[in-house]
């Protein structure tokens, strides 16, 4: 620093310039007031998410206790006891084939005939689709023939179970099977639980299982009760999806690859060349995502979940700069003498220019931490497979950039978000990124399943600073695989 610079610094250091304070403060105050409004919207969003989760949990604890149909071990033991007295229900152990029951024809409560000694007499259901408000049917008869004679069970809406040959469960026993385990009264009638099941296979509102699903379970449970060697899951190894409480919590972990699609736009014309240069040379080296989630699923298939996700994008690009330097001058001096003898001196100079092309290679590593919140629906065509879709927003909590700029003629320079100085082109702020997922899940056990899904996430805002002349933003299509555990 020379004397002039020292003098300049000393003179200007505490020099007060005139300021229109009133006007400037008005602008500043307005900007600060707008800041106060933003957190309100932010808290509303979080409140909404909190309410969603709280509603799910409340539903789980409230409705989960009111399971419409519960086939529990104590009830099975009673039946087994009764069956032992009467004997002759051995043939029911073949009831695993009942899982292949043909679809129930419309207007009929149950299939006409099932093999392996269990036959159902044809009963015309008066209900039809959604016809439960009509008068109830006369009776449902279950019959199984066995070594000790036939087994026949009938249940009527307002009459006790009339006659079971070789097997005489009390009315109380059978109705216990058909009723909620806690003794409460189903909305559509307790003792006629079977009869209230729509014949079209749809689920009644009180949660009773549709006939094609319920009857095999009932018979299988009866068989299992009669012979403990028979597993209740003899066919698929997994119980029915919809069995159990109305709301089920779950969690899962996943990881996958993504293909970052970058939007790079110059906000000002003078930066378009830089952007074009970068786009031409850019290579995506890596795009990965990994996360965990927790949610609650309703029996209907609707679910809500939240999680935490780590997202990373690695890229490389080259930037070539053409620099022109003047490396010398040639002076041209001339004397022009015209005819009358006038003399004119001319002078000019020729600049010798040198063009230097230099290249920088930059490795950028962007890291995101976000909270995905989603609502979805899962469709379960059978006990093993399901398809699902979900959509939501990912709340970006943090962003970090690590970069290494390699000037091919020099040493690499490293940058990290936290250590970046003024003018740093990136910024970390909370933003919302909408996303949609679709996938398939395969059940390994009653609780554990694996899944594969496709995901598309659209970053809600640019990762570059607002005042940076280039806008950089990503769309992230990807594929995830993971494990899912349902309680």
């Amino acid at each position, binding site marked *: 620093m*020379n004397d002039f610079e020292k*003098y300049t610094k000393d003179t200007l250091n505490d020099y007060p310039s005139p300021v229109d304070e009133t006007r400037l403060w008005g602008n500043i105050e307005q900007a600060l007031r707008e800041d106060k409004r933003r957190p309100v919207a932010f808290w509303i969003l979080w409140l909404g998410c909190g309410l969603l989760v709280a509603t799910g949990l409340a539903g789980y604890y409230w409705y989960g206790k009111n399971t419409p149909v519960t086939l529990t071990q104590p009830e099975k033991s009673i039946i087994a006891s009764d069956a032992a007295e009467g004997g002759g229900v051995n043939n029911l152990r073949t009831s695993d084939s009942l899982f292949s029951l043909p679809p129930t024809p419309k207007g009929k409560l149950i299939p006409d005939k099932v093999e392996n000694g269990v036959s159902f007499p044809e009963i015309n259901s008066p209900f039809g689709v959604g016809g439960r408000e009509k008068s109830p049917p006369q009776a449902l008869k279950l019959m199984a023939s066995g070594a000790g004679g036939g087994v026949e069970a009938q249940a009527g809406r307002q009459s006790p179970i009339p006659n079971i040959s070789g097997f005489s469960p009390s009315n109380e026993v059978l109705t216990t099977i058909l009723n909620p385990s806690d003794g409460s009264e189903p909305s559509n009638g307790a003792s006629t639980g079977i009869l209230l099941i729509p014949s079209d296979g749809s689920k009644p509102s009180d949660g009773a299982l549709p006939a094609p699903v319920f009857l095999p379970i009932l018979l299988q449970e009866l068989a299992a009760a009669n012979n403990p060697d028979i597993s209740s899951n003899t066919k698929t190894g997994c119980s029915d999806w919809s069995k159990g409480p109305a709301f089920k919590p779950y969690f899962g972990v996943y990881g996958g690859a993504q293909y970052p699609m970058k939007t790079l736009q110059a906000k000002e014309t003078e930066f378009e060349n830089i952007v074009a240069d970068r786009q031409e040379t850019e290579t995506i080296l890596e795009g990965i995502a990994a996360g965990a989630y927790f949610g609650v699923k309703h029996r209907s298939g609707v679910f809500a979940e939240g999680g935490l996700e780590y997202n990373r994008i690695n890229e490389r690009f080259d930037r070539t700069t053409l620099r022109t330097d003047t490396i010398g001058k040639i002076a041209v001096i001339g004397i022009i003498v015209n005819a009358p003898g006038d003399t004119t001196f001319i002078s000019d100079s020729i600049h010798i220019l040198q063009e230097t092309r230099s290249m920088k290679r930059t490795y950028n590593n962007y890291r995101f931490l976000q909270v995905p919140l989603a609502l979805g629906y899962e469709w379960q065509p059978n006990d093993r497979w399901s398809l699902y879709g979900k959509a939501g927003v990912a709340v970006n909590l943090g962003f970090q950039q690590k970069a290494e700029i390699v000037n091919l003629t020099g040493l690499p320079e490293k940058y990290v978000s936290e250590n970046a100085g003024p003018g740093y082109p990136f910024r970390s702020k909370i933003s919302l990124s909408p996303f949609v997922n679709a996938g398939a899940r395969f059940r390994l056990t009653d609780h554990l399943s694996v899944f594969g899904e496709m995901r598309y996430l659209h970053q809600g805002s640019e990762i570059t600073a607002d005042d940076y002349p280039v806008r950089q933003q990503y769309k992230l299509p990807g594929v995830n695989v993971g494990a899912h555990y349902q309680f």
Partner: protein
Amino acid sequence: MDNLITGCKQKNPARQRQLFGLFAPVMMTVARRYAATSDAAEDILQEAFIKVFRAFDQFDETKGALEGWIRRIVVNTAIQHWRKRHKNFPATPDEFLPENPVAAEADMLMDAEELLQLIADLPPGFRMVFNLYAIEGYSHAEIAGMLGIAESASRSQLARARKQLQAAVFSLQKNGMV
């Protein structure tokens, strides 16, 4: 001052207004050093104070004076403004520039407004590097990092700025203006 800091941390509007009134004139001088016009300087000052109040929670009085903290924010804001408008400026090899061409014997009778005008007349790149190096005391390596330019470019910009300032000072002296 403690009450002022506490009030600003609590986002008390009256205290914020008081702080702005206290520091705005001096910070306006800082902004004017980096800006070519008064309007641009006001933009820098306004944006800087918005940042100050938004980030006031982060101010730690044990680590330094409030004025220094605000000054750094004003300078950083000025740099961001400059980066928006002047991404590339020409780099000249050092060997074609004099090492330290500003006359040390420059007349010291110039007042602050004249100095500000001299600095404002510098080309944007010269002005930025001159301010950061000569007034703020940053090294060329630091300036290169801040502005996203090569260290050699920072050196050459400073040398050119000095040369232009020298010419301007001599011109003023020659015309008897200083």
